[in-house]
């Protein structure tokens, strides 16, 4: 009896060690892209520039967080047989909200991301977290878990985006208000390769802009992560 009484008094929004772990775990040990290998599709397709990847990351964090929250709130009312369709409808509603908001706020980026915003619905991370976590846990913790996984996904997206844009185009955040020109052949770049003694040989690597580069980079990222974090080696 005493135990149940204590449990009921548990505050609704506590943020202790366990909750912090829900956020930090997906960033490295249980990263959705490099360890669970979910949601690779959009990670490969949108990352040729940093700015769209950044927008995509925010959109995914929003969708994973709130779909986990809503599913968890409704989890006792969803019949087992139709739970897939219910989850899909929740996700699709959130994605529609994101899509329309983005269309209103920033039309060029919306055009650039095109169908990949809509494809957040079928991003396996969202569905996977709903099935594995939100259906069995309290709303607050599910929300944190969703946010954590979204962040883990977003972190990889931005890392890949930075690598591809710096080596492929010589710039950072192209198309955004804080565009930075890092390396290139004219005077407005930070490192001017045209009259530099050290970087005269440098040319942008066009391979990085091609879709194939994303596969190489994520493959190499998994490789690097596994060599630092040896307990991941025999997972797959």
């Amino acid at each position, binding site marked *: 009896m005493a135990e149940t009484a204590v449990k009921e008094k548990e505050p609704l929004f506590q943020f202790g060690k366990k909750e912090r772990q829900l956020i930090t775990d997906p960033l490295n040990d249980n990263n959705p892209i490099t360890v669970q*290998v*979910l*949601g*690779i*599709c*959009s990670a*490969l*397709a949108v990352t040729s520039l940093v700015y769209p990847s950044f927008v995509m990351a925010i959109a995914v964090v929003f969708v994973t967080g709130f779909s986990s929250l809503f599913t968890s709130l409704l989890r006792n009312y969803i019949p087992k047989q139709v739970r*897939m*369709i219910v989850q*899909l*409808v929740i*996700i*699709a*509603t959130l*994605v*529609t909200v994101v*899509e*329309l908001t983005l269309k209103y706020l920033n039309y060029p980026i919306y055009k650039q991301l*095109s*169908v990949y915003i*809509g*494809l957040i*619905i*079928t*991003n*396996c991370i969202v*569905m996977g977290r709903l099935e594995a976590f939100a259906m069995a846990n309290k709303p607050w913790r599910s929300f944190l878990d969703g946010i954590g996984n979204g962040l883990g996904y977003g972190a990889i997206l931005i890392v890949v985006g930075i690598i591809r844009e710096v080596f492929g185009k010589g710039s950072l955040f192209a198309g955004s208000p804080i565009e930075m020109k890092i390396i290139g052949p004219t005077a407005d770049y930070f490192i001017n390769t045209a009259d530099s003694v050290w970087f005269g040989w440098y040319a942008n690597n066009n391979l990085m802009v*091609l*879709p*194939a*580069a*994303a*596969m*190489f980079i*994520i*493959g*190499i990222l*998994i*490789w690097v992560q*596994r*060599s630092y974090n040896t307990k991941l*080696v*025999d*997972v*797959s």
Partner: protein
Amino acid sequence: MKEESLWYIFINASLINNFVLAYFLGICPFLGVSGKMETATKMGGAVTFVMLISSMCAYAIHALLVAINAEFLQLISFIVVIASTVQLVEMFIKKMSPALFRALGIFLPLITTNCAILGLALFQTSKGYGFFESLAYALGAGAGFTLALVLIAGLREQLEFAEVPAVVKGTALTLLIAGILSLSFMGFAGLGS
């Protein structure tokens, strides 16, 4: 824009802009199922079939939504239709051929969350294809998906005999190989012009 022939749409979806290797749609089954040749071909067949049906449904729904001026419902209605199509196909196969049903196993329901199918529906509406063009597009996309799956499955079967370091084994290696495949598929880019 020039008029696109059905043949061109088919070749475009299957080779030039291969769904897996150029658009990166459906990578999850691509990595998960491509271990064995046999399952790869079966999965390819099932996906092509679902693509054809959901492409027809998507065409009809889009026409309906445009008629009643409710295009913001597009995403929700597409995904619900795809989910129910997959359910229907699953029941149909279970009834008609239990052996095939057992062979496909978990992959059948997973087709719902295959981005290639939703991606196909979204692409065909954004490109404004008509009914037969949509069918050709779906067929091409399915063929391209199967082709990519079979290619990588063949490579992975051979790789089992190769000695690779434990750190790259599995996903990392598959992604690197897929990258090389994707590069080689770019050679088809000249076909359309």
